[in-house]
């Protein structure tokens, strides 16, 4: 109800301001017998901006401090002797009861006289304070409107001022992306440094045992937080994924960009790209219920001990996930190689495959390497597939058919549902996140620079 009133007042004021600015500019233009610098719509918009700023300021301040003011008012309405006899929890309860009485909802049991009084007083206070805020906002808005109206002359550069405001808004929006990066770096660093007050960085980065004990009582130790097993698991899974994705992705990109008939290309490419749109949790489920049992069935048939959840399962499915990523990036890059190189090679009598292998691929190599780096970055940051299919066993093992664990899995395990960032058990997630962010940052930036240089080379 109240917010509806506020919105209505705001809309009416803005509409009024626009209208006033618009008509005033036309009037002064006629009176001064001079052409307006800006069109009336800009004068109207400028007036509306003038009104919006003070009104939004007042309403914002009230939204920020209003609840606190109301609380202290309620507290002041409880008689001092009663307030002294109540414990904090009871005091809160009494305040809630007073609110209920004031809202007309009523309370259970017979309300005490002071509660009734306070409820009535609060009701008045709420009404009056709301009216004051509305009046202050509207009054300031009207004052601003008068000021804006007086400023309007034919020479007023209203359009430039409106455009300056628009420009400022655009800059503010661009800042969000930068603030996000800063926020990531600062929050990860801050929490990671807190983690390093518990565990020394040397033990973290070079430790080979991962065993964060969840009960820190008694034993004195806080568990072992060695990064190496997780890092090894991450690298192994990413390597298997690339081993699957690179040949398939690159070969299909080559076929689609160099051999395929345009019609085939335009049907097959979107189908492969469908793979890229599938949520990773679906791949995880696919790995868990289909690929894992399939691999372990093969293992049984040939007499190998292959676990259903293992680095191989997760890596294989992650490879499937990355195929469209590699194929569409490589496809773009192969198509950017100048046609003259290809035609020259074909004209000298080379077969198509020779042209591709000896001319186009070497020319496109930097770009393709960049695409691979982006794919690796994607693979080490992937979470849900490994959470479901890697077996969650953070032990240093060389065998890819044994369960393993990765950095991302461990972040999920250590932080899921836990908001109390007090102990190393949850803070370690941020140290792991920082490691992950640093790794992907290096890969991404390297890839971006390589790809950019490649583009510039052929532009």
């Amino acid at each position, binding site marked *: 109800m109240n917010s509806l009133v506020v919105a209505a007042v705001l809309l009416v004021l803005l509409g009024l301001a626009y209208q006033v600015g618009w008509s005033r500019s036309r009037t002064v233009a006629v009176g001064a017998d001079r052409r307006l610098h800006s069109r009336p719509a800009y004068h109207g918009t400028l007036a509306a901006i003038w009104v919006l700023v003070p009104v939004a300021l007042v309403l914002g301040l009230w939204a920020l401090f209003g609840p606190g003011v109301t609380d202290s008012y309620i507290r002041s309405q409880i008689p001092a002797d009663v307030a002294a006899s109540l414990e904090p929890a009871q005091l809160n309860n009494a305040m809630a009861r007073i609110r209920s009485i004031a809202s007309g909802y009523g309370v259970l049991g017979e309300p005490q006289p002071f509660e009734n009084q306070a409820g009535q007083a609060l009701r008045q206070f709420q009404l009056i304070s709301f009216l004051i805020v509305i009046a202050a906002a509207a009054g300031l808005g009207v004052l601003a409107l008068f000021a804006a109206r007086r400023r309007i002359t034919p020479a007023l550069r209203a359009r430039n001022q409106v455009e300056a405001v628009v420009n400022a*808004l655009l800059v503010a929006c661009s800042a969000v992306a930068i603030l996000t990066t800063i926020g990531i770096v600062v929050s990860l660093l801050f929490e990671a440094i807190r983690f390093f007050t518990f565990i020394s960085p040397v033990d973290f980065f070079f430790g080979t045992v991962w065993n964060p004990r969840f009960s820190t009582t008694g034993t004195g130790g806080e568990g072992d937080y060695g990064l190496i097993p997780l890092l090894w698991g991450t690298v192994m899974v990413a390597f298997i994924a690339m081993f699957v994705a690179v040949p398939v992705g690159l070969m299909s990109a080559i*076929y689609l960009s160099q051999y395929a008939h345009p019609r085939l290309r335009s049907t097959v490419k979107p189908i492969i790209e469908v793979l890229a749109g599938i949520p990773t949790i679906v791949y995880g489920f696919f790995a*868990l219920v289909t690929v894992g049992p399939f691999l372990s069935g093969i293992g049984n048939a040939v007499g190998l001990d292959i676990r259903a959840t293992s680095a191989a399962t997760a890596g294989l499915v992650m490879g499937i996930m990355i195929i469209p990523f590699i194929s569409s990036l490589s496809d773009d890059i192969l198509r950017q190689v100048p046609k003259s190189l290809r035609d020259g090679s074909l004209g000298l009598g080379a077969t198509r495959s020779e042209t591709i292998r000896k001319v186009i691929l070497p020319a496109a190599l930097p770009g393709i390497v960049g695409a691979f780096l982006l794919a690796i970055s994607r693979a080490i940051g992937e979470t849900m597939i490994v959470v479901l299919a890697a077996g969650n066993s953070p032990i240093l093992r060389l065998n890819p058919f044994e369960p393993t664990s990765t950095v991302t899995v461990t972040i999920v395990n250590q932080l899921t549902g836990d908001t109390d960032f007090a102990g190393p058990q949850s803070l370690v997630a941020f140290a792991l996140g920082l490691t992950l962010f640093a790794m992907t940052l290096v890969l991404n930036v390297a890839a971006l620079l390589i790809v950019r240089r490649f583009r510039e080379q052929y532009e």
Partner: protein
Amino acid sequence: MTDINMQQTGSEASRKRLEIIRASLSRRHRAEAIFKGLGIAAIVLALALVGTLFWQVFSKGTPSLFQSTLHLDITFDPEVVEVGPAPEAGSGLSPAEYEEAYLDWRRALALVNWNELIANAIRDVSGTEIDGGDVRALVDNNAGLVLRSRFQDNPDLLGQTVPMDLLVSANGDNWLKGTIDRDLPDERQQLSADTRNLLDELRADDVITMDFAWHLFTNVDSRTAPASAGLAGAFMGSLYMMLIVIVLAVPIGVASAIYLEEFAPQNRITDLIEVNINNLAAVPSIVFGLLGAAVFINYFHLPISAPLVGGLVLTLMTLPTIIIATRAALKAVSPSLRQAALGLGASKTQMVFQHVLPVTFPSILTATIIGVAQALGETAPLLLIGMNAFVASVPASPLDQATALPVQVYLWQGNENRNFFEARTSAAIIVLLGLMLVLNAIAIFLRTRLERRG
């Protein structure tokens, strides 16, 4: 061609050279064929993988779209339903007092043995006398609640007989569908031999039929009554998050793309921003989850498990996608349009907002849909901000506890009743994939329309 060459040259050396070339030619053609074959094999493999994945999900999920449903005539016997009349609002009671009386009445309803009504109805149909334990094994735990809320909505039902559809329990559904091995010995079966026989008998008499599982879309998640668990809560949670993403990411993303592409000076700072945005697009999603946990929840104390926080995290994640796509679209607008506008005296802002931006509108829309589809399928960051909590209600606002569709998939795949929930999870995936498919189809449709016009 080679014959002519031979006649013309004739000399020993060149004939030798030709021989070498001819000998190598078949080798080279063979290499060509192999290379091309590898390309085709790669494509076929990739397509086969898409096919396998979809086939697996659909073949596993479709059976659980149909679920064993028990059709019974339930009599609200006054001897079993022993409660007073429902309190009425406004009869001299303050709202708080009415609420209290109503709660008392509902408490009395909760104590009624609803399962006895079901047991009576089954006895009437099959002639088998069963007790409360058997009822719990036979029908879903939710059945009592269904009867209760039916009665609560309409207290006049007391003494009447109404036909009702109740879900068979998860174990019963497993037995009837054969997702549990029917030849397993008694001690390894979840249900007693009597209950199994009764189920088969009711199925043969068409008292139990396989009906379309509407409740999958209308019910919320449930732990105690797995057969009636549905996606409604997760769907609303995802919907709230997507609305937040659209409301925040689109204006901010488009605005910053406009600034960076049209207004920003070309210098090292804008270069850095460009690298920064491209990097953000490739930052692992789980890092955004860490950001959300540290900043939104730990620092700003926003509510945990709330779609609001999830929406904000996904907004930050989607932003780079939208910025990059919008910049590409702005770049593609032909210079003649800009020059014409500027030449006619438009200011730079007017040129951008009134002439360039409207042309790019379809591409921005496509990018938005693709970004939203990506955000819809994201799971990992949501786990870190507590959206994997078990929530048995439909969130009424973005500040309530909620879960999301992909997180629901994650929760269900971890359920202990694997026989039942593997199919249920696949069904949830079908719903999720269906939504994404619709979104992508819209994006492709818009793209082709755009291309046709351009």
